[in-house]
């Protein structure tokens, strides 16, 4: 086990701890004292669960997951389809299963399963990457779950599926022209796709992104309050638990989608740079796993995980600082939410499994 990447785990733990601070501050007005019900307590319990799960996932040879790939993919699609019928709704979107008293976000689980399935498919065909059929089938594999989450609706996660697929086919060696064509078609069809698939809900969000003042106390409220909060943080921040936007509840969903605004307001630009540094280091360790993998399958899994984390961080922060329209995506390791946190640790478990087995084979 000496090939186990301790740095990767330490970075993840540091992120969870960092998130814990923010969670504590953001919950202060609702939970003045720390109890068993406190979001921080729950988050730490999920973190422990995640670490445990990570060890289990790492212990199992990742190639076993490859053999189960078809089943895992089917499971992902069934979950995403089922959640539309039996799932629970919040914020205008149906994303959650209730399971053993806990809410499980189907798309969080599905992302990881789809990464494994795509990795298996592309690894098996690494000599046929120039074949357009492989390219198109892999696209279809990502497009199906993406379409299902789009129906929830959850544009952000759909985009993450797209990013994962693009990163993985590029890594697998798809000809650059395919990638260019795919991107071109995607960009060209965005307006039509938007008209076909976007509900009023998304159009509203788009309008509010352009002009939050059009509804200062409604949907535009949080966009504006997040911007004010982050902006008022300045370079050094107002100080933990000192941000008025957070503490006086101007900021909504400040423990989940908008937790970055808490950081921006209370810890400032410096706090954000620390967060980005932690993520960059974590992602570099993931990229390292991709390069060290003994086989294409592991390398592709590592690539998928890295792209997944990178895009989630980017989209989440970009929403907070009004670079992209509002879409509900948790900030990995930071946002309150069991599904996301546990799945993040399980992803790291996959990376660790890849690293461990690489080293073991070597000696």
């Amino acid at each position, binding site marked *: 086990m000496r090939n186990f990447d301790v740095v990767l785990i330490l970075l993840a733990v540091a992120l969870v701890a960092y998130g814990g601070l923010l969670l504590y501050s953001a919950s202060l007005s609702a939970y003045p004292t720390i109890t068993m019900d406190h979001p921080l307590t729950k988050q730490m319990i999920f973190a422990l669960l995640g670490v445990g799960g990570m060890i289990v996932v790492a212990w199992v040879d990742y190639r076993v997951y490859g053999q189960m790939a078809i089943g895992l993919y089917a499971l992902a699609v069934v979950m995403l389809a089922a959640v539309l019928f039996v799932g629970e709704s919040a914020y205008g979107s149906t994303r959650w299963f209730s399971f053993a008293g806990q809410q499980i976000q189907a798309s969080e689980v599905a992302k990881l399963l789809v990464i494994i399935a795509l990795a298996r498919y592309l690894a098996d065909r690494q000599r046929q990457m120039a074949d357009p059929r492989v390219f198109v089938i892999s696209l279809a594999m990502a497009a199906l779950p993406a379409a299902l989450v789009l129906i929830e609706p959850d544009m952000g996660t759909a985009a993450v599926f797209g990013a994962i697929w693009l*990163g993985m086919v590029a890594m697998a060696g798809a000809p650059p022209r395919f990638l260019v064509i795919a991107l071109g078609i995607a960009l060209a069809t965005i307006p039509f796709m938007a008209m076909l698939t976007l509900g009023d809900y998304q159009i509203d969000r788009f309008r509010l992104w352009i002009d939050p003042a059009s509804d200062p*106390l409604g949907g535009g409220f949080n966009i504006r309050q997040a911007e*004010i909060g982050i902006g008022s943080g300045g370079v050094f921040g107002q100080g933990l638990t000192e941000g008025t936007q957070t503490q*006086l509840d101007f900021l909504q969903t400040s423990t989940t989608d908008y937790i970055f605004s808490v950081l*921006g307001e209370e810890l400032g*630009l410096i706090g954000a740079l620390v967060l980005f540094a932690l993520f960059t280091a974590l992602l570099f360790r993931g990229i*390292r796993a991709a390069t060290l993998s003994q086989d294409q399958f592991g390398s592709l899994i590592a690539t998928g995980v890295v792209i997944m984390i990178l895009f989630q961080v980017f989209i989440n922060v970009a929403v907070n600082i009004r670079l992209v329209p509002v879409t509900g995506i948790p900030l990995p390791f930071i946002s309150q939410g069991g599904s996301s946190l546990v799945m993040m640790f399980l992803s790291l478990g996959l990376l660790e499994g890849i690293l461990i087995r690489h080293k073991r084979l070597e000696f």
Partner: protein
Amino acid sequence: MSYFEGRRRWRSRKAKNERTPSERGTSMAAAMRGLVILMFGILIIQLINLQVIKGDQYREQAAINALREIPIPANRGLVYDRNGTLLVQNTARFSATIIPGDLPEGDEATAYRMISSAIGLPASEIEARVAEGIEIQGEFNPTVIKGDLDREVALTLIELEPHVPGLSVQVEPSRNYLTGDLLSHILGYIGPISAEEYERLADEGYLYQDFLGKSGVELTYEDVLRGKAGKKLVEVDAAGRELRVISERRPIDGTNLVLTIDLDLQAAVREILAEYSTDSDNAAAAVIDVKTGELLSMVSLPTYDGNFFSGPISEDALAELIESPGKPLVNHAISDRYAPGSTFKTIVGSAALQEGIASTSTTIVSRGYINVENEFDPNVVYVYRDWAPLGVLDFYDGIAMSSNVYFYYLAGGFADEGFRGLGADKVAEYARAFGLGSVTGIDIAGESDGLVPDPDWKQETIGDTWTIGDTYNFGIGQGYLATTPIQMLRAITAIANGGTLVTPHVVAEYMDSLGNTLEALATVTSTVPVDAANLQIVGQGMRQSVTSGVARNASVSAVTVAGKTGTAEFGAARDDGTYETHGWFVGYAPAEDPEIAVVVFLQRGSGGSDASPAAARILDYYFSGGGPTYSPGDTIPVPDPSPVDVLDATAAPGANEAPATNAPEPTATPAEEPASSPEPEPTAPPTAPPTEAPVSPPTDVPTEPPQETSPPAAALPDERRPNRGLP
């Protein structure tokens, strides 16, 4: 376990699987690292934009978000009468306000519609008010869109508040005038600050939603009554709830006022005045302390209820108040001016004594008229009439009997007999010295200057030459002369107290909430340029007027009264050639050691038979210290004089017979009344004072102003002739 180590190991596997895209993997890894750095770079650039470049701006917005400055209104000062009776209470009223900046942008119409249906004001009007508010004080100060909400409407709106961002119901202090309409002209009322007032007063800390005094003491003593509003800086959460007070400045309550008014006397005066003014559009009376200038009572009828302005104001009711013929909102005691008639003879008499024109022994014979020949045509003779052929008169008789001829002599002289008069300039000089023609300085806003004419004034204003006839008219308080009741009261006070011209006032002192006097207001005085001895002579004439002259109806058993009546013609001639008259009485008591002075003015009435008994009732109430001695039917029945054309100018002797003075027809003659009871009051020609009453045109303005370019008097309509005098 370095990166390079890894790469070497990967290469070592190359032989086993030559198709493994190791080189490609390395470059892909580099690409991915680049992607990570690129994406975080984008985020960092936007963060620097928000946090560093625009940081200050957002910090300000965060502060505006979380902090609210809330004014804490001060309690307005209370007002008491001189005996400590509370006259005004503070209450609350509700108003709907909007903070324009908090309205949903682009969807204001919905908000206006919701508010509109709740308060019953058209949405367009709400929009207009909001626009006005933004223009005057910006987007983030509350603009009142409707004040005086009924309690139920206020409660409905409060429920609406959470659904309409920007809407808030404000509770404002209001005034409850406990004496209803009894003191309205003195106390005045408060109202919302107007745009012009706000512009003028914003520097003094007034807010756009403030109320301030609009008339009366509420206006004059606004600075004192107002106090100083406090404010608190509070932190609010997103729902607008106050979380904690960051800093607070307590308001300083307004100072209480103690009036000089005696509430009981005020009620009595008002009741008496109402009784005698049933024929009048309006009437006024006041009682003053002759030594201090403190007004013990001041009544103007008709009146209004100050609480009218404290509740929801109906437009119709307001229009009625403004347009009703009696002008209830006008304080006729100070704001409207009238010809003082014979009451002015007290001043002409004082002047004549002081200037040596007359002495107590100056004897003049009134044959009922004097004739004055036209300067250019001796055949044209003007006749100036007395109200009766009063015979031989000394100075006391002249005042007591109110002889017009006597005062024609004193004012204008009589060339035929070589009698030199004061002349118009001297009469004007003394009139001004007694405070006529300028405000008395009473501490209630809206006072009229009145008018003291002189030759220069006539030349400038009318564009015509002053004539001897003008001087004659002037001498008996007619013509262009116009005074307010309070001016006449003040002038008579100077005669009563030996020459001190006091400033009448209604506020005695400032008082704190514990009843301690903070400041007793000093009485401002000046003196009239007449020796006390001469004033005393005039006073004796006034005393004689009450004992045996034309003011006998003013006599009271409880006290010795000195007084002077006035019956001044106004308006156009009636069908029978007579005029409507104002009834005046000015006087004081006790005659030997004056304590108070009184003025009674009736817009329609006679000085002798209406104003005098009213004054008697007031004096009796004051000195008997109780209920009225006289019941309404008890007045000494001096007949009402039919106004006569005293100054009947005739184009040629005999060509026009002056109408005979109508004999008085007593309706009942009490036994003690001498059979030779003189006619109550002479009358004089109608007056035409230029109109410049402050609030509304006075009701006694003739329909036509004096004509400066008229043909000879004979050709003029009757009502104009008197003003012509000698060409």
